[in-house]
């Protein structure tokens, strides 16, 4: 089973409505077998990041696809520019010991 969506995402409200669409559409069987609360949380953050940092050209669609095989796969594709390598090279992660 698989399903694909195309959304136009420009604001946090667009993200909210898109999430609502995907989660409302998800069949009961999917809710039974996977932790979709966590999926919604991850999907929300990914879509919010596209709106906030993705530099997606205005009106360009964001594609969300889920596939249910032996596991649930969710892929998200936007049309934004790739992150410059220099940003990745100079990035650092917080020390886990300093976190709650």
């Amino acid at each position: 089973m698989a399903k694909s969506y195309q959304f136009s995402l420009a604001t946090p409200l667009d993200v909210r409505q898109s999430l609502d669409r995907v989660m409302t559409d998800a069949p009961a069987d999917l809710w039974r077998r996977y932790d979709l609360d966590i999926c919604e949380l991850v999907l929300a953050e990914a879509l919010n990041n596209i709106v906030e940092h993705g530099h997606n050209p205005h009106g360009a669609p964001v594609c969300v696809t889920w596939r249910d095989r032996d596991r649930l796969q969710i892929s998200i594709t936007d049309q934004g520019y790739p992150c410059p390598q220099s940003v990745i090279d100079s990035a650092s992660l917080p020390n886990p010991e300093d976190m709650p």
Partner: protein
Amino acid sequence: MDLSLSTETNGLSVTVNAARIDAQAALKFKDAIHDALTSHDASRIILNLAQVNFIDPSGLGAIVSIKKHLGSNHPIDLCALNPAVDKVFRLTRMDSIFSIHPDLDSALRVG
């Protein structure tokens, strides 16, 4: 964002009258809490999340920033978390920095 406030013997209970604290609502939520706290002098806040069924990382960030802003002299406790909201607090280990109560009555019995 719509909040209901009620002054109790051991704290100010703040009920969030919204289903989602997400990126769309986070800023309005923070502003509404700050407004509520300037008009009510409370030594302890109990945030009642019974009506909230989704909190995203922006919403979680808003709640953590309110806690930081209030400092340790004005603790903020949480109560009545829906299963999906409860998961967010456990997954991020924020359950270790907030006191979480099953419902408002039990939150009022402590502290």
